[in-house]
Structures are given as C-alpha cells and as structure tokens.
C-alpha cells in the first residue's frame, strides 16, 4: 500500500514540474502570438522529422551526453564547474593544435592524437580552476568564469593571429582541416557512429565508476561533507583534482568532436553553450547518471527543432533556449518546494 502510494507520489513529483513548464511555455507562445500546438509539432518534426534532422540531433546529443557525464563527476564532488564551457573551447584549441602537427597524416593516426591531445587540454584548463580552488581559496564559480573569458579571448587571438588563414584572419575560423582528419560520418549525414559509441561508452563508464568504485564513493562523500570525509581518511585534495581532470577531459573530448566532426576547423564560439546546457541537464537529472542520456536527447532535440521554428513559423529560434531555461527553473523550484514541505 505504502509502496504504491510512494510510487504515485514519486511519479507526480517528477511529472508536476514538466506540466508546469509546459503550461508556462504555452502561455509564452500565446503571448508571442505563436500557435502552441503547431509550435510543439514543428519542434518535434524539426528535430526528428527526417533522417538528416535525426542525424543533426544526435550530433548535438553526443556533445551534451559527454559533457554532462563529465559534469556529473564534479557535481557529485559538490563542485560547480562553470568553467566547463572554457574547457570545451580549450579542447577544441588543443585539437586544432594537434591537427596542425599531424596535418599530413592519415586519419587513423591523426584522429586519435587529436582526441587525446584535446582531452589533455580540457583537463589542463579544469585543473587550473581546481588548483585555484584548493590551494588559493578561489571559488570555482569565479575561477571557472574567469577561465571561460580567457579561453574565448585566446581562441580569437589564435584565429586572427598565429593560426589565421592564408588569405588573412576571418571570423569564419582557421583553415579547413584536410579531409583525412575529419571523423568518418554516415554517408550524406553529419552524424558519426563512432562518436555515438564513444558517448555511450563514456556514459556507461561514468555510471559504473560512481556506483562501483571507491573513487566514486569518495567523491560522493566529499560532495556531501568534505570535512567528515577528510576526518574519515579520504584524501580530499587529490580526489578533487581528479574530479576536475575527468570533467575537463570529457569537455576536451567534446571540443575535439566539435572540431573534427561538426566544423572541421576552429571557429570563434566553438563551444556553442554546450557546457552550460550540460549543467542544466545535470541539474535536471538530480545528479543521476541514468537520466543523462534521455535528457541530453531532449535538449538536443529542442536545440535543433527550434531552428526549424524560425524557418517554418517565423518564430525566433531563441525560443528553444527559453523553453529549456523555463523547464530547468521550474524543476528546481519544484525541488525547493518539495524540500521545504518535507522539512516542515
């Protein structure tokens, strides 16, 4: 009896925020003069309607799934790794750097080098935040924010400076990579099956390391009570460093994919806000690895689908971002209310 009631309560509390978010979204649409039902249909067909659109959605999904898996690690350890956006960008920069080194090589040699080097770059950028946090008492939110700006500026400098195209620096980015260094994709589509497999692999590894390894348990302890964890004998500093390194490496991997799958060159705002979307996904998942894949798919679909709104209904594509933001805020609000009710 209590079991079924508990289940009922859990389903209700999980669905209520979605319903509220939906209502708010409908109101927003009505207020902007858009037909609500049509908009949702277009959002769906815009992201899943054709094989090409499905492929585009999965390209975004790969990035969101990997970056949110990495962020799960820092979140478990109680860290707000806002710097993840810069870590993706640093991954792209390191990937391009590596690509310039293996410019003439075959893909089978070049691509792994590019990916590994990008992961090193992302981890390095994350470790800077961690070192400032642990040894310099700089809050990771401010540290991360600072390094995001630095990464952006450094990226622009490279594109217009040392790495500019032969014809001169341009906003369109660096020279296009030789095709040998492009990650192989399905014919006619932009999606790479290897990338999808890697993303699934990352999700599985992160899920099991949180469940079944001492490392995962120690990170969880640090996130819940760092002082008690330390007193119990958990080496807190090395573990925090490792959490940032893993998250940064995941971000770097995303950075590599953006370069060798999506753009085939380094462009100014290459990280595309995927890091921040990743944070929203982890927040929505209640820090539960199992939810990451479906949530990432939803966010990817809204991102891709909202570009279709622009074309077909003449609704600004930023509406997708608004919907994502509203959903996260409502879910967090509901969690807050739930906790307040329980504590009473």
């Amino acid at each position: 009896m209590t079991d079924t009631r508990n289940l009922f309560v859990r389903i209700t509390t999980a669905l209520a925020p979605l319903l509220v978010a939906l209502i708010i979204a409908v109101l927003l649409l009505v207020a902007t003069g858009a037909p609500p039902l049509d908009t949702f249909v277009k959002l769906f067909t815009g992201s899943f309607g054709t094989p090409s659109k499905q492929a585009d959605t999965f390209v975004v999904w790969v990035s969101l799934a990997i970056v949110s898996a990495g962020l799960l690690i820092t979140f478990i350890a109680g860290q707000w790794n806002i710097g993840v956006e810069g870590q993706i960008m640093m991954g792209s920069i390191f990937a391009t750097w590596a690509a310039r080194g293996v410019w003439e090589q075959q893909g089978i040699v070049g691509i792994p080098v590019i990916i590994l080097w990008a992961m090193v770059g992302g981890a390095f950028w994350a470790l800077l935040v961690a070192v400032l946090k642990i040894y310099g008492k700089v809050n990771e939110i401010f540290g991360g924010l600072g390094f995001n700006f630095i990464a952006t500026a450094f990226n622009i400098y490279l594109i217009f400076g040392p790495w500019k195209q032969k014809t001169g620096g341009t906003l369109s980015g660096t020279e296009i990579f030789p095709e040998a260094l492009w990650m192989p994709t399905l014919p006619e589509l932009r999606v790479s099956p290897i990338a999808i497999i890697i993303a699934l692999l990352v999700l599985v590894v992160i899920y099991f390391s949180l469940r079944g390894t001492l490392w995962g348990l120690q990170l969880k302890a640090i996130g819940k009570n760092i002082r008690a964890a330390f007193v119990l004998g958990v080496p807190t500093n090395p573990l925090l460093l490792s959490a940032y390194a893993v998250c940064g490496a995941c971000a770097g991997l995303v950075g590599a994919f953006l370069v060798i799958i999506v753009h085939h060159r380094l462009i100014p705002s290459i990280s595309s806000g995927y890091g921040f979307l990743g944070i929203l996904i982890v927040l929505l998942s209640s820090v539960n690895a199992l939810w990451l894949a479906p949530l990432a798919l939803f966010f990817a679909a809204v991102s891709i689908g909202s570009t279709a709104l622009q074309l077909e209904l003449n609704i600004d594509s930023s509406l997708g971002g608004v919907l994502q933001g509203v959903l996260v805020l409502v879910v967090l609000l509901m969690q807050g209310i739930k906790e307040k009710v329980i504590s009473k």
Partner: protein
Amino acid sequence: MRVELKNIHKHFGAVHANNNVTLTVEGGSIHGLLGENGAGKSTLMKVLSGYIHADAGEISLDGGNVKRFKSPADALRHGVGMLHQDPLDFPPLTLLDNFILGCDANLLQPRTRAEKEFRELCQQFNFDLDTNAFVSDLTVGERQQLEIIRLLWLGARTLILDEPTTGISAPQKIKLFTTLRQLVAGGKSVIFVSHKLEDVEDLCHRVTVLRRGQVAGEATSPFVTEQLVQMMFGQQLNIGKRSNVELGAPVIEFDHLTLKDDRLTVPDVSLSVQAGEVIALAGLEGSGQQLFLQACAGLLPPSAGQLRVNGIDLTRKPYENFLRAGIAYMPADRMKEGLVPGLSIEEHIVLAKRGKKDALIDWGRACQTASEQIKEFNIKGIPPTRVEALSGGNQQRTLLALLPPDLKLLALEHPTRGLDIESTLYIWGKLLERRKQGAVIIFASADLDEVLQYSDRILVFFGGHVIETVKSSATNVEQLGYLIGGKKQL
C-alpha cells in the same frame, strides 16, 4: 524593568533543555544565571530574547502579560535586548552603519541624529568608540560596548549578556562591570549568564543556578562559593573508582606543544600518556580542549613544540601519517565532522576502512561487514540506512564501529553528550574494552561525573591554559568545579 519567566518548557527532540523554569529578575538589579555547559542557560535566554519560542510558559514584563516574542526585534520593542557570546554584529560595516542597522527608520537613515546620540551614549559610559571606524577593527570588548549602546539606543531596558567575560581583557572586564553597575543604577536590569563563579560573585545581586534544564537553586549576595558549586554540579561528591589496567609504553608525548587557532592559544603543554591510560580534559567549553584533541588526531598542526606518537615525531606531519599510526578522532558534532549525511552505514564502512583498499567496491562484502558491525555495536539500523536517519546514540555507535581494529589513540569530544543512560554505558563499555587492548583514550567532557568515573588523569583547561593536571583518584566533583571556574584553592 522587572522580568518574570514562568514555567518555561523547551524541548529539542528528546532533550528537555528547559524544564519548568521560573525566574524573576527585579528592576535595577544584576541577576546572575549560573550553570555548566548544557544546563539550559542559553536556551532560556534565547526564549526571553525572542530567538526561539518556548513550548510552554509565559514571559511577563513589569507585571503585564506578554505571551511570547515573535522575533528578537519584537523582544527589543518590548525592551529586552541580548548580547551574544560571539557578538552578532557586522564586521565589514562602520560603527555608525552597524549602530543604525536595527532601527525602525523609514526610507531614510537618521544618520545625523544617530551620530549625535551615539556620541552621547559613548560619553555617558565613557566609551572610546569612533563612528567611522570599522567593526572588524574592534576588540571583542569594544564590540560589546558597541552592542550595549546600540541595544540601549533601540530601547532596551533589560540587557542579557551571554558569557560576556570570555575573550576580553582584564581592564575591559572591569570597564564592563562598571558599565553594568551604572546601567542598573539607572533603573535598567541586567541578566548575566556565566559559568565563572568569580565574575558572578563579584557582580551579581542575586543568582539563579540551572542544572540539567531545571532551577537547582537561588542565592542572594554575598554568596557562599561552596553552595553555588554544589548547586551547579550536584550534591554527590563521589570519588572516582579506578579499575586497574597495566599501563604500557608511552603512546603519545607532547613536548612543550603550543596550539593556536584564530581565537585561542594553548601555550606550552607537556604530557606523556601511556598505553591503556584514559585522560579527561575538563573545563568550560572553548577553553582549549578541542584544539588539544584535534592536535592529538593530527587535524591541527601545532605552532611550536613537538608531538611524538610511539616515539616517532609526527609534528606537522600530514593527517595520513596519524591515521597510519592508529589514531582516530570522534568529534562532538557528529554530523558535521564525523559522519557524512546522505551516505549509508555500509558506505561509511567502506570509506573508513584503513590500509589497503580495493578500487572496485565489493558491495556484497561491504553489506555483510556492515551487518556484522551493526549487530556487534547494537546499532538500530540496516546497512543501507542513511546515517542522518539514526538517533544520536546510534550515530555514536556507528562512529565506534568505524574505528580501526588496531587503534592506538582515540581522541573524543563529549563522548556521550545528548545520549541516554543506556547508550552512555554501552559506549563507555566499548571504549574501556579498547583501553584494555592498550589504546590511549583522551576525551573532553562537560560532565564531571563522567570525567571522574572514567579517567586516570584530568587536565583542567581555563582560558586556553592547562591550569592543573590532577589524578582522578585524588579529586572530586567539588574541587573540579572550583578549578573549572578558575579558582585554584578549595
């Protein structure tokens, strides 16, 4: 102002912090509130100043009936203001900003008027406070002065001072006492909360003693110290019973050790403790016992001197070395420093395991170990029970279950505070078993019976100094009471 508290009751969970407390403070008098840590003094004063609500009972001011205060601001509107032990002020603000902060002004700050009245109040009490200085630059004594004039300016007619003589210098104390006498001469009333006998005897007209949440007695000046001590600590003067344990080699040695945190210095402690010995740290809360225990456990590096464990110099060595030496720490605040809320008993067992650890967790075995420990330590829970769902006694048992098998030294803060008799006896049984196996136990406690009953030697702390080291068999509750209150002679 005459203040009457009638039949106040306050529960915190299972703890009856105030049990039918009735107290009358006459206008124009200084009333002392005396009692050891946890006697219920602060709770009672928080009820009177509107910080917490009583479960039952009444507060009446000057004979009128005021049921309860909604908030500290509400209490202040009725004329009751409280100075907290750690001043509740705003270090980054200037004195004038801090002074104005609580006033019922409209949109505009009454700065000119406030500044003028600030100066007048300073003059009246002969305080030397600069309105433009920052609160962070003041000494604790000056911050008290600021709080006093602020509360008076906001209309306080009864001032409550919680342990005001802790952390201020001797001249500042004299100044404070002069101020308080000046206040009551003007018709205000003062409630002076303390565990320092000397201060209470020196200052108060009348005193109420609380013990375990109840009024243990009242007395009027001039006081008989002996009588106050008896009321504070109970009548029984039992001599501690010593059980005989063969003492082994020295386990931990302190060689002119000096400990410091941002509040307190514990200078020059030298002590050698042998295997099987139990050392109690007695003293008012915050007199240095916690620093001492944390230094034993390797959580606070000493600023001078040497600390040796089993003959090995561990001074300023990483905490890890202390863990490897078989040292463990059990803090008073179990959920803050001991256990990780949100994690289960079995997860704690895995985390706390010392020595070689496997990277992959064998949850089946962890669950089995946890079940065994739960049975052995009689913990009311199952392996996946989260520690925050356990009662205080069961949390303490869980901490015991986490101790390593080859324990050499255990540093504990308040091993049985807030626990019922059954848990208390059980925990001491387990601790004494460890001692028989040759472990050193060093514990801090506010319960003098516990101190006398279980320790071999007692270090008495007062204001950061170890003022006395006594053999438990050669002392009693009464003498300890004097020492803790800072009086050396019996």
